[in-house]
């Protein structure tokens, strides 16, 4: 019995390694939206998903490490959020599937039928708003009474708590900072995220899906947005909350948070790979940053230029013709920047790549 338990816990620990969990999540994302949409949208699936998640968390609480992480007052709302994310994703897909079926049959979508049956503000709307606000009040009251505010000792510049975690909604950013330089992950990317979200209604000129859920009529818009939200934001929050421990090392959900866990993370710049492994320039790094980082610069510029050409001429040709130049180039710029994050993460996991372009002299690292 104990050995089976050990086997299962170590298997789950191994599965939660960033590279494996990330890959598995991407595959699952693809399967849910492109292969199993109909099955996923069934009510049964929702009950099954929420139920098994609940059972998983409940049973896992037998493990002391898991219990202490999950029941920490900071983390309880995040556990709640996981259930909500599953529910709302399911709800959207559920509605999409219903509407897509109606559209295929040439019928009106669900909302159009609903819109014909008017209801009164009073009492119908006000009453349900009232009930909702009472429930919200109750939840907040109980929450504030039962869970202690997670206050820590007074701030001290020479002592950083270990691990030091951002507020939960910023843990995605903190995870990004592990892979990118502060000026990129802390300044450029957050700006791009905010600006990009603001720009969505100006870039997306597809009138379909206005006021109703549909997948088939706006596949690209929904997949790219949900990839950014579910994988690059929610999944990174899960990493940061549950799987990052002391010294910002990676810990499986059942792994004891050992302060002295030894993780070999010797990261290497691309330039070091280039010169040391090929013996170019006698295996020594040139002092001139342009010579040293030339390959990295070419790769980064090439990614954006060649990526744009490829999308424009090949993969998103129709979209380019529909949207026009300015919209399309802004879209591609945002899209390629978003893609840069998973690319760098994978490179870090596979070959311990630190920076593609590393010029610390000028605070310029990519």
């Amino acid at each position, binding site marked *: 019995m104990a050995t089976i338990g050990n086997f299962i816990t170590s298997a789950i620990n191994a599965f939660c390694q960033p590279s494996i969990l990330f890959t598995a999540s991407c595959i699952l994302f693809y399967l849910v939206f492109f292969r199993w949409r109909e099955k996923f949208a069934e009510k049964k699936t929702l009950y099954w998903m929420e139920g098994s998640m609940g059972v998983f968390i409940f049973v896992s609480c037998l493990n002391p490490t898991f219990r202490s992480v999950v029941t920490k007052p900071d983390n309880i709302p995040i556990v709640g959020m996981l259930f909500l994310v599953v529910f709302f994703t399911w709800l959207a897909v559920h509605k999409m599937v219903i509407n897509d079926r109606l559209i295929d049959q040439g019928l009106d979508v669900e909302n159009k039928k609903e819109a014909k049956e008017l209801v009164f503000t009073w009492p119908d709307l006000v009453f349900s708003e009232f009930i909702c606000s009472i429930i919200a009040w109750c939840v907040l009251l109980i929450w504030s009474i039962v869970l202690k505010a997670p206050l820590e000792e007074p701030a001290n*510049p*020479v*002592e*950083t*708590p*270990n*691990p*030091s975690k951002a507020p939960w909604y910023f843990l995605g950013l*903190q995870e990004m*900072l*592990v*892979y*990118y*330089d*502060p000026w990129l992950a*802390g300044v450029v990317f957050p700006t791009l995220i905010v600006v990009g979200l603001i720009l969505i209604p100006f870039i997306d000129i597809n009138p379909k899906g206005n006021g109703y859920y549909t997948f088939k009529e706006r596949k690209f818009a929904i997949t790219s947005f949900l990839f950014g939200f579910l994988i690059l934001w929610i999944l990174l929050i899960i990493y940061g909350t549950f799987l990052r421990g*002391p*010294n*910002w*090392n990676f810990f499986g959900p059942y792994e004891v948070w050992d*302060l*002295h866990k*030894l993780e070999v*993370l*010797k*990261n290497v710049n691309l330039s070091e790979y280039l010169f040391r492994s090929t013996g170019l320039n006698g295996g020594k790094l040139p002092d001139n940053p342009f010579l040293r980082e030339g390959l990295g610069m070419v790769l980064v510029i090439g990614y954006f230029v060649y990526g744009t050409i490829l999308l424009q001429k090949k993969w998103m040709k129709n979209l380019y013709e529909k949207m026009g130049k300015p919209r399309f180039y802004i879209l591609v710029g945002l899209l390629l920047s978003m893609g840069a994050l998973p690319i760098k993460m994978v490179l870090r996991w596979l070959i311990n790549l*630190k*920076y593609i372009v*590393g010029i*610390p*002299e000028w*605070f310029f*690292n990519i």
Partner: protein
Amino acid sequence: MPTPKFPESENAITRRDFFNWVVVGWAGFAAAMGGALTAIGRLFFPNITFEPPQQFKAGFPAEYAVNKVDERFKKRYGVWIVRNERGIYCLSTVCTHLGCTPNWLEGEAKFKCPCHGSGFYSTGINFEGPAPRPLERYRIGRSEDGQIAIDKTVKYQFEKGQWNDPSSFLELA
């Protein structure tokens, strides 16, 4: 269409009066803002600070064991003093990634930052995690009484080749 006539009164404000008042109003506003900002700016220069001095004496070299990272001044001055076979140097405790304070892990012989996992050797060279450059070193020398003197106002950065500067390293014969 007849042009509308405005009733004229004795004490109507003339255009000139109006602009005079506008100038007075804006001048007053600017003066008030300037005064308030000056008063706020003054807050950045307190009469007295309770920070430890930037220059301090760190005892005699004999108090430091060879190949050990000494943490006695970490809390008060934010420095580590490290002695190797050749001499002594003084490292800043500010991570070069985003400024958290790393911990010295004796068993693994590295500084490890709790915020994003940056790691540094005892020399201060970065080797893991996202830190883009090594920890900074401070000016180190001898005072007249033979103690180690550290000056935190002068920093030496490896990536700029400043660690070759003799005052970034206290050579012990």
